[in-house]
């Protein structure tokens, strides 16, 4: 039996009478690449914020990396990495300054930062860009750097919110190489995406509709279950029933 690094039991968040996330129950395993899908407004962000220890649930239980989402949120934050398309690195700092800043926040020693940061730049082939301002790096490089920085402190889980949005198809695939490499080292990858082909790259996925998880399985099983030829069809079949629309 594989080790579960995220477990939730009827995890619920209400804003007044509005049920943003309704009784979410699931387990995510160590080293798993998990796709958390849903239409805009389905409740993905709310669920992710609870799992990252940024938002207190209304009811239900959840443990992330072994810590409770109600009263061990600081422990959770130390055990996870986070990256999104909208915010990842500081643009007016250099690549190296960003590495030092994030590694420092996560409590790495100067020597660790030196060693790990150096290896990171080597692995990405970015040694020559060490002192380049992030604002002048191409978007694709920035996203790859951001991902590597997000896992520099060896978190158990990394949350990626639309990490590949807008990057070119070659970089998108290089990014997936990085995701697979991290997963094979045992890092659990929890990600959202609007690219349905990327849903296929996940070990398992869930699809949220109006605050509920309406589907949860491997891509192959979901296609079988819904009699669909692609994940796009599965998603479309489920999500178009949604009553809620939102940002």
């Amino acid at each position: 039996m594989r080790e579960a690094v995220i477990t939730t039991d009827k995890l619920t968040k209400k804003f007044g009478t509005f049920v943003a996330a309704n009784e979410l129950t699931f387990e995510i395993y160590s080293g798993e690449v998990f796709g958390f899908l849903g239409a805009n407004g389905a409740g993905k962000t709310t669920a992710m914020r609870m799992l990252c220890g940024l938002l207190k649930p209304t009811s239900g239980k959840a443990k992330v990396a072994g810590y409770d989402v109600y009263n061990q949120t600081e422990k959770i934050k130390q055990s996870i990495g986070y990256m999104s398309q909208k915010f990842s690195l500081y643009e007016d700092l250099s690549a190296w300054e960003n590495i030092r800043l994030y590694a420092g926040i996560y409590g790495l020693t100067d020597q660790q930062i030196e060693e790990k940061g150096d290896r990171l730049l080597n692995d990405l082939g970015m040694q020559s860009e060490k002192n380049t301002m992030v604002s002048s790096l191409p978007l694709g490089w920035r996203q790859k750097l951001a991902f590597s920085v997000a896992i520099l402190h060896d978190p158990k889980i990394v949350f990626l919110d639309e990490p590949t949005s807008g990057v070119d198809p070659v970089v998108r695939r290089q990014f997936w190489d990085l995701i697979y490499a991290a997963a094979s080292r045992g890092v659990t990858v929890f990600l959202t995406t609007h690219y349905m082909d990327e849903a296929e790259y996940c070990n398992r996925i869930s699809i949220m509709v109006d605050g509920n998880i309406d589907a949860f399985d491997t891509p192959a099983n979901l296609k079988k279950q819904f009699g669909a030829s692609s994940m796009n069809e599965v998603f479309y079949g489920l999500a178009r029933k949604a009553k809620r629309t939102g940002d």
Partner: protein
Amino acid sequence: MNTVTLEHISKSYNKGKTLAVRDVSFSVNHGELFGLIGPDGAGKTSIFRILTTLLLPDEGTATVAGYDVVKQYHEIRGAVGYMPGRFSLYQDLSVEENLDFFATLFETTIEKNYEMIRDIYVQLEPFKDRRAGKLSGGMKQKLALCCALIHKPSVLFLDEPTTGVDAVSRKEFWDMLKRLKKQDITILVSTPYMDEAELCDRIALIQDGKILSINTPEGTVRSFKGSLFAVRADAMVKLLNDVRDNPRVHNCFVFGEFFHLSFKDNSLSNESDLIAYLTSKGHRNIELHPVQPSIEDCFIDFLKQEHA
């Protein structure tokens, strides 16, 4: 008849340090749905802003609806509709007030051109007194499209209308565009989603300010050189590394539920040899078959040629 023409258009920023658009030439026919397909930073927005007279090109000439983008900017502004990538309507005006405002700017009325927007506006009408800032993402997008259409433009520019929008709303939006096309309007649309390319009459693939290819979606696919195969097996992550290690394989990358790969040559034994190799590596349930390239495969291939 060409409704939009660009000849050797170039544009740079930061005193020439950032080349946003490099020697771009193409033309769009009357009534066409033309797609500008490329990632962020490819130059799509700069091209749209030049064509809508919001930005002066450094070099080259361009016309829209027969008018020159520099000398006749005033005429162009009356003839085009433009929906920028960022939501740019008045958040504190209601749905109807926004629409009325744009109609008035162009010296027309909602009633006069209602036919143009009927199909889209009926979905907004129940919310016509709601402030634009309080609308959902999909609704904002529909309102922005109505505001860009209310003066009956002959050319419509849509800059990344579906970026960050979920798969369902994206499909709805493209259905709207298809119906709109029947209204005798030329549409230029930009998108980073390669799968949307197939919905256009013709597409330009663009990266780093340069056009990689201009063709119909079918023609783009036909131009793909060599043959492409799809492979999968039970252990996908291991499979990717093993396939890449095979000396006969030119490249291999993830593609939906399969990996797409091409061989270095056209040897007839390529397929059977690869299956034997993968079996010897312990892979089970190996599936390998030739596959029709998609627009995304073509884009990847063009990028590789650029870098070579």
